[in-house]
């Protein structure tokens, strides 16, 4: 069974349009990032999140009034998953006293609901820890990029390395932009997903690069663009199948994994789609525009190389 035959599609013909599209999307993303900012989750802002489960479906207004009676100017009160589950998010308190806050809030709620409420989850993050988590997260992305840059450089060539990095940054930006544009909560698990996207996008890019390198060495005829197109065509069915299976799995995570990893799964869905696109139209296109040539990828013949291979 073969789905589609890819043989002679001139993928690179649309590279300028693709660059325009990518640039536009990225600019919108950056603009949104500056205008709207990111809806940072508790992990980064600090504060308290309390999740409670009621035995009966509960009205949010009732929860809010119970909180107000307890003297809490609640930040956010919303249903979480079902109408019986309520999530309360309180901003960080200046003095370091919020560790006990959760109990007081829960006390107020259970008094109001006459014990018909169950504490499901409490998360308190001090403001200082939030800053550190954000910093560590940023560092993690940076170091992952540097490590990958070096590896691709060593294994391929600097033009590919730069192409791969541009594609990776592109995917990161697009994923973050979706969260910014729609005001979705960006927490630690989403950050983990962004890092996974980096890994996935590179995986995809490397497969194409690998084929380009192979074809440069194998095929003596044809321009650089011909060979790049040929490589993309040859790897296309693999690209579609792998992206497809990964997408199916991530969709399963999104649909069945529960509220806690909704953001995580969504980031992966966005990342898999953009990662697949960017391997062709960002990473490869960038490498082509930087002037990748056949000579750059010819194996370096060293003296005595043949000897090493002998037993």
């Amino acid at each position: 069974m073969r789905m589609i035959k890819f043989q002679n599609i001139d993928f690179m013909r649309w590279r300028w349009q693709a660059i325009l599209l990518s640039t536009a999307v990225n600019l919108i993303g950056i603009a949104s990032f500056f205008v709207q900012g990111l809806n940072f989750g508790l992990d980064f802002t600090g504060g308290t999140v309390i999740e409670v489960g009621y035995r009966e479906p509960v009205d949010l207004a009732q929860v809010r009034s119970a909180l107000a009676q307890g003297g809490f100017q609640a930040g956010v009160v919303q249903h979480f998953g079902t109408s019986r589950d309520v999530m309360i998010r309180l901003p960080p308190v200046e003095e370091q006293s919020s560790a006990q806050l959760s109990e007081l809030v829960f006390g107020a709620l259970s008094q109001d609901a006459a014990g018909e409420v169950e504490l499901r989850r409490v998360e308190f993050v001090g403001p200082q820890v939030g800053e550190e988590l954000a910093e560590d997260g940023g560092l993690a992305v940076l170091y992952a990029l540097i490590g990958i840059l070096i590896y691709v450089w060593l294994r391929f060539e600097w033009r590919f390395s730069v192409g791969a990095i541009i594609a990776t940054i592109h995917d990161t930006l697009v994923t973050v932009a979706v969260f910014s544009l729609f005001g979705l909560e960006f927490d630690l698990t989403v950050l983990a997903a962004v890092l996974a996207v980096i890994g996935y996008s590179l995986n995809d890019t490397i497969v194409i690069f690998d084929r380009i390198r192979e074809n440069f060495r194998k095929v003596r005829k044809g321009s650089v663009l011909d060979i790049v197109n040929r490589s993309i065509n040859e790897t296309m069915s693999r690209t579609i199948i792998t992206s497809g299976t990964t997408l199916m799995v991530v969709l399963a995570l999104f649909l069945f994994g529960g509220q806690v990893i909704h953001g995580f799964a969504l980031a992966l869905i966005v990342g898999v789609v953009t990662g697949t696109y960017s391997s062709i139209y960002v990473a490869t296109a960038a490498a082509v525009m930087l002037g990748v040539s056949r000579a750059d990828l010819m194996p370096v013949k060293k003296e005595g190389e043949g000897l090493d291979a002998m037993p």
Partner: protein
Amino acid sequence: MNRYPLWKNLLILGVFLVGILYALPNLFSQNPSIEVTATRGAEITDTSVAEIKAALENAGVEYKAVEMLEGGKLLVRFATSGEQLRGQEAIEGTLSDRYNSALTLAPDLPGFLRALGIQPMFLGLDLRGGIHVLIDVDMDAAIDQALERYTEDIRSLLRNKKVRYLTVTRDEGRVKVKFRDAETRDKAGKLIGKEFRELVLDTGDDGTAFYLYGSMSPADELEVKKSALEQNITTLRNRVNALGVAEPIIQQQGERRIVVQLPGARDPGRLKEILGATATLEYRLVDTEHSVQDAVDGRVPVTSKLYKDREGRPVLLLRRVIVTGDQITRAKAGFDNRSGTPMVRITLDGAGGRRMYNTTLDNVGKPMAVVFIENRTITNMVDGKPVKRNVRTEEVISVATIREPFGSTFQTTGLDSPNEAHNLALLLRAGALAAPIEIVEERTIGPSLGQDNIDQGFRSVMVGFVVVVLFMALYYRVFGLVADVVLLVNLMMIVAVLSLLQATLTLPGIAGIVLTVGMAVDANVLIFERIREEIRNGSSPQASIHAGYDKALSTIVDANITTLIAAVVLFSFGTGPIKGFAVTLFIGILTSMFTAIMGSRAIINLLYGGKRVQRLPV
């Protein structure tokens, strides 16, 4: 062609079998259980089993089994977590004076697995419920205390050696000694330099007076911080153990943080109360030269400080601390041989013992006091808002006369009751926190949410898995089925490695497994597409298989190594959820390379290797 040597097949088979063995415990259900330990003074015996059974039956709670464990523990198994909770109520309600109970999950393993010591995966708090607390240790305070000690030590050294100094004070993170002339200062400098090698000395003068500055060397500061953290961890462990929680985790994180994780615990308030209080002890001499009444009236001598004992009576003590609680290595309650009255036998560490000996040698017949200092945070409601304040309690818990000089081992007598001796010993033993702590992060997951997370995580893995398996079988036919088999093996291997390493499985960890399932297929897709290409190019089936695996290898390795780099970075920089994700991603990539390349090749070699094949079902 396309045959693996025997050793390679055996290796794969061996890894597979070991994988099955380690993954096996995860198939057995985990019983919600209660771990019962004896409180102080009580013991777990056969009668305890009967007592607990009776308590449960009286309350009408059904249990599955009561087992004796090693280390004086009992395990009561229940069928559901509802019964487990009612069971705990029943045990706490009737037997709480003698037994501590803690909620836990106990795998229901057959004997041979138990004998091999093979455990199921360790579930993180988000999957089993529990409390996670991140504690910050106030290192500045630890340094401050160390400087205070140096100040006192230098003062007494100079006094003993009869070096005339004007003042010894603390000055912006260093000790400042003031002298009238440079000569005395230099003499003192030599003395101090010899006695406290770890201090960095510096001199200065302002025309009228001469100064000697002693500051802590960076190495010394590091040492102080390190030991403060270590001691805090030990102390917290002791306190948490007193809570009676099964499998508590108390770990250092970074340079000044401590993580406390209590699986199954449900009351963060109680934990925080216990963690929050900081207690320490100080041994001081009683000031017998000045009048207590004068001090009460406000004329407290510079060298002394006014305290109160537990009845509220004023006691005047010298400022100089002989030893502090962190120098106590052992404290045991008992009865005095001679008088038969309750006493506490105390053992000090080497430095503490020397100081105690030097002090008591000079002060036989004089009274010495023990001061108990406790810091705790109290939350009050003021105008409907929680207001926190720190309360420091300092009280003299005992005053005793030094009968003879003593060193590192001595006893405190004059206690009212065996109970008081017992409490004092416990207080001394539980130790003090070397530096104040503060809770900077808290995550509490209720048990029901944990179960929901397990169910949802499991369901999403299954759905993703089934979809991928169906697709592969349809698209690649026999080869697809081979890929499905190795995917299943891969899943099993991840579970096996997680069980073997006892790495914590969290919800993001499950997400990592799901992602690996999607990506593990990639290696096989790459290989199969290559094989198809080779066939299209007119190669023979055998040559196609060979070339397919061969050519895809470098691509697979390159692609996986880049993901591996991401996983390693995630692991080293990440905390909490990120780490959990990185662990399974890392393990998943390694196992998937093994199963997708070697495992699938072994099966395909067995199916087609060395045979005449006309067409490959790929």
